[in-house]
């Protein structure tokens, strides 16, 4: 499957994807390492762990490219008194990893960075990172917006470059600890679901029906072992 399509389908929340996964042949020594690294290696098989380590070892972007990414990412999600910045969430490092994990993004990103410096040189006689913010924004204003009714393939390359960078910045930031805190996501921890709070129901103009609620779990009885009569009626 075309990776771009796979990214698109991710946006739509689809679970389609499709890359090879290596088999699993744990040796004793490797398994011990996995045990030691369990906390940081989130249930990896030895082969997956090796792959992660290999990708971490390589460096794709050079120093200038990393410096340019840092400024671009902070233009996309700037820091302020109120908010942490993309740099605070180490987004450029995340992008560095992703271009090795999904190499199809490399040309678009690296080429985009070159294009950007070329534009800046031609118009202002300096590379992007040396420009004052006003001029950086002047350039970005020309590539930051797009018409969603025009298919992506037909949009200017520079626009697609910046869209990709914006996507990676947003995803890198909001999957980081500080990004999730800013978003306010309350899950990923043990809890007891007992329905949508009343004020939220009201805000969105919906309500629970008594008949439906009567079928649902009484959470005060969740730890009492289930027993049924012969007809399948729960009696505990």
């Amino acid at each position, binding site marked *: 499957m075309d990776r771009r399509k796979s*990214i698109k389908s*991710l946006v739509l*929340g689809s*679970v*389609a*994807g*499709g*890359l*090879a*996964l290596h*088999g699993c*042949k744990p040796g004793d020594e490797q398994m011990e390492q*996995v*045990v030691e690294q369990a906390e940081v290696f*989130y*249930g990896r098989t030895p082969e*997956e762990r090796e*792959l*992660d380590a290999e990708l971490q070892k390589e460096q794709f972007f050079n120093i200038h490219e990393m410096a340019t990414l840092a400024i671009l990412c902070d*233009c*996309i*999600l*700037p820091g302020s008194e109120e*908010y942490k910045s993309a740099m605070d969430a180490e987004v450029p490092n995340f992008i560095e990893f*992703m271009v090795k*994990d*999904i190499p199809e993004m490399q040309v678009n990103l690296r080429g985009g960075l070159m294009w950007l410096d070329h534009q800046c040189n031609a118009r202002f006689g300096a590379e992007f990172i040396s420009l004052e913010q006003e001029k950086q924004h002047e350039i970005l204003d020309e590539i930051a917006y797009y018409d*969603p009714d025009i298919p992506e393939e037909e949009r200017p390359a520079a626009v697609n470059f910046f*869209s990709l960078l*914006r*996507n990676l910045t*947003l*995803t*890198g*930031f*909001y*999957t*980081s*600890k500080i990004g*999730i805190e*800013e*978003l306010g*996501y*309350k*899950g*990923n921890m*043990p*809890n*007891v*679901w007992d329905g*949508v709070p009343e004020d939220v129901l009201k805000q969105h103009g919906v309500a*629970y029906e008594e008949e*439906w*609620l009567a*079928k649902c*779990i009484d959470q005060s009885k969740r*730890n009492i*072992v*289930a027993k049924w009569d012969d007809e*399948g009626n729960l009696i505990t």
Partner: protein
Amino acid sequence: MQIIENAKVYDAIVVGSGAGGGMATKVLADAGLSVAVVEAGPFFDPADPKHQTQLKWPWESPRRGAPTVRPFGDFDAAYGGWEIEGEPYTHKDGTKFDWYRSHMLGGRTNHWGRISLRFGPKDFKHKNVDGYGENWPIGYEDVKPYYDKVDKLIGVFGTNEGLPNDPDGFFLPPPKPRLHELFYIRGARKSKIPVYPSRMSMLTKRINKERGVCFYCGQCSRACQVYADFSAGTCLIFPAQKSGGQVDLFVNCVVREVTTDNEGRATGVSYINKEDRKEYKLKGRVVVLGASACSSARILLNSKSSQHPNGLGNSSDHVGKYLHDSTGGDRVGFIPDLMNRKVSYNEDGVGGMHVYSPWWGDNSKLNFPRGYHIEIWGGMGMPNYGFGFNVNEFNKFFGTKVGGYGDVLRSDVKKYYGALVGLSGRGESIARKENYCEIDPSTVDQWGIPVLRFHYKWSDLERNQAKHMQETFAEIIQNMGGTPLGDMPGRDQDYGLQNPGRIIHEVGTTRMGDDPKTSVTNKFQQLHDVDNVFVVDAGPFVSQADKNCTWTILALSWRASDYIVDQLKKQNL
């Protein structure tokens, strides 16, 4: 190379440790039989910290959960995928079949959505209704007692609604609907589509002391460390071992073939140990195949001998035939009334939907037979790779600019968080002899075992059903005040019908029947040709139903295993 033989003779050798193999292991071991379980992948236990992905945060993965390594994302519990390095499969005549395999203890039960639907009375005799396909040699009344036992042993939430073809059961109470599910209920009813609490195998209530109760992290796909959801390892194999059963696990062992004696009866299996790449033999009185419909067919077809020149159990030439998968179609909608949500609460819930719609249509008025059920997803989920992509594209619906940079993107993220709803149809296709898997004579995998070659085509019956899905989903999304995203896929795209195999409900390759000329197994899933070989995965399914197949695999595997125990006692095997 000398084949290394194990001297022990097991009462039963079970091949595969998923739903079918897991259930057979439990029933046979509980009956006091000695059982060897041969699994192609590694040991897996979600209670072991080194195997856990549950409750990890996205930043613990350097790719933030992107599906570059595991096809359903870095945190999905299942090893394997659509392609496995060194273990190819091929296609015939340019047809398509995507084969998902998960080689690990518990198999694909570590992956599935836990949607646990009984087949109904009509599903076993659907030919009588519309003339398509074939009837099963058994009926709902044969399977009902086993469905009842599976409900109680494993646990499933749902509600008794007295529906004609979606039978009642022994349910745990369901969780309350989430916000977007309340919108779905309203939208579906407007189109006269009924909605009920979903039926899924998570423990909303305790069923025993060994397994925990759901703590609503919404991550069943990551495998539950307190065993509050069903997977074959945690709920069948481990309990069989803990209750003192004689269960020997052979992991990382790929079965090549079923071995036979001079009379053509099975003597055991031969397998390759992945760790030393050597071939071994195990002896057993009975061989129980639960390797997955296609893998079990492959093992049978590769088990050629002078008594079984066409492969084991294949005198009918039906092994591999009638392969069929569920139909699948999906649509996503943007719901403006779900914008600007309060994030004051945790709505992870169980892993998957809290409500669903079983098939409601009247096929006599439609241009396709058989139906589909609707699955619903959405909500304020945990961000993962892909979150924030095209962050403000929905601005187009409000006539404002799309794209940009700066703090406005932060408010866009929050404005649209949780405003998408997805609908998926999972339906029944017609089993056809022309859709099959067979051995590819010119390809072997890295273990030297000949691989499968697939031939599969959808017909207009499935395409018409997919078109109905798309029209229905668009209507429901509009009823919810929303806009379906993207263009409705047309005829040139099979109306969005997913490739065969994509729904991971492969069934039918060793179908059961009373006539040995047109079926591979009898109604107890015993090979017509060899009385001590059984198939307990979805291979013996005659038809798919508009239900997920796992609950029926479990019930039928239990039924077949009871029969094995009985026949061994009577010394008929």
